[in-house]
């Protein structure tokens, strides 16, 4: 009993530390990659190839003055960045980073917790993340923040339906909510990947996930060219960075979940499982950055129309086709 608690705590510390480092270096990765896409060099001064830049940024932000705007709702204003930052970290708990291994006769699963409702848990936490943005927009009592918060609420709930419906086809085949189990079903051969059985579901899922994490073609809650900075206009220093890092955490979590659901997670030949898992996650992160460097922002009416009139019907058609193919 004590030993299993010890193993749990060690696993949590390793995954948490790894995840925090990943968040920090995703900021560096994105700035570097976007710079290359735009024929710039990006941050390359602090440390070799700019690798110490995230640490320097963290120290800079820690020494900035924190304050609460006088017209804001103080409690909600403080709570909002925390709500935006914590859920994506918690969602990592159900994503497996490797197969069950045996250490000294004990079976150790390489994930924090094998919840049997894994996918529901991830979506539930994703929905809680919306509160962070909406509360930030509302509590700031600034016009730009309020507009950003309003937009984000409407946008994110619209795409949440698509996100939820897009995996239903996959669930019909997999017959389980547990992400660890879904990854196990895909191991063995590349052809077992659910991407090949549910390609439409993958694209819909990825687009909706991009909208959920407020990434570029869907970053209307921020929209710096029209709303200053959207919902986090009023936030200073590290408190602003919490939103910023929360967005990156969300991106990494989504990449992990996508890799696990559609691309076989840790499964792959020759290399150790954890390496395969990281390769897939970084590949998705790169696609995120690539899309950001390539596409312009949606207009708001296009965004809502796309969500309700394209994504939503397509997910239903996907479910119907999957159901018909499975019966016939």
């Amino acid at each position, binding site marked *: 009993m004590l030993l299993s608690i010890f193993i*749990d*705590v060690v*696993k*949590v510390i390793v995954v948490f530390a790894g995840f*925090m480092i990943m968040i920090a270096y995703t900021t560096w990765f994105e700035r570097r990659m976007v710079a290359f896409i735009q024929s710039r060099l990006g941050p390359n001064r602090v440390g070799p190839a700019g690798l110490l830049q995230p640490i320097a940024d963290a120290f800079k*932000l*820690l*020494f900035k*003055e*924190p304050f*609460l*705007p*006088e*017209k804001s709702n103080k409690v909600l204003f403080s709570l909002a960045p*925390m709500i935006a930052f*914590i859920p994506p*970290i*918690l969602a*990592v*708990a159900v994503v497996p980073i490797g197969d069950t291994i045996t250490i000294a006769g004990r079976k150790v699963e390489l994930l*924090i*917790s094998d*919840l*049997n409702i894994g996918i529901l848990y991830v979506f539930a936490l994703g929905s809680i993340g919306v509160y962070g943005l909406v509360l930030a927009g509302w509590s700031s*009592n*600034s*016009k730009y*923040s*309020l507009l950003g918060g*309003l937009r984000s*609420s*409407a946008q994110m*709930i*619209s795409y949440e*339906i698509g996100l*939820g*419906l897009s995996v*239903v*086809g996959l*669930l*019909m085949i997999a*017959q*389980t*909510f547990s992400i660890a189990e879904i990854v196990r079903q895909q191991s063995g051969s590349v052809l077992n990947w659910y991407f090949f059985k549910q390609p439409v579901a993958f694209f819909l899922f990825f687009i909706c996930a991009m909208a959920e994490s407020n990434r570029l073609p869907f970053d209307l809650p921020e929209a710096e060219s029209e709303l200053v900075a959207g919902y986090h206009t*009023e936030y200073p*220093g*590290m*408190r602003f960075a919490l939103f910023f890092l929360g967005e990156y955490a969300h991106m990494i979590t989504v990449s992990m979940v996508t890799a696990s659901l559609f691309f076989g997670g840790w499964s792959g030949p020759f290399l150790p499982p954890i390496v395969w898992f990281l390769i897939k996650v970084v590949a998705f992160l790169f696609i995120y950055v690539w899309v950001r460097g390539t596409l312009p922002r949606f207009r708001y*009416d296009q965004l*809502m*129309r796309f969500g*309700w*009139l394209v994504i*939503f019907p397509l997910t*239903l058609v996907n*479910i*119907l086709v999957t*159901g018909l193919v*499975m*019966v016939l």
Partner: protein
Amino acid sequence: MFETLFPIFVLAFFAVLTVLIMFYLPEILGPKTKSKRKYSPYECGLIPQTDARERIPIKFYLIAIAFVVFDLEVVFLYPWAIIYKDLGLFGLFEMGLFILILLLGFFYIVGKGVLKWE
């Protein structure tokens, strides 16, 4: 139950601890200067005249109501998807009927122009 939930609470503990440190450490490290302008809401240099929380376009409420209806549909679809292999054609027919009725509402919403943003 304990084995699956305990690690999540440990993770939550670490996450909350980190966030609290990141949120409150600047209170100790950062400078403190008083300035009236700094605490007022940012409005591109203008002095804010009214409260920011004004009336909100009705569209947002309509979208929210539509969301509740269709998100419930998702909730119904999840358990159905898990046991779909056992249900077979019967399950497809039943769920198809349910979705069809909901889609009638969806077409009504679209026809009324709820999703038009002008």
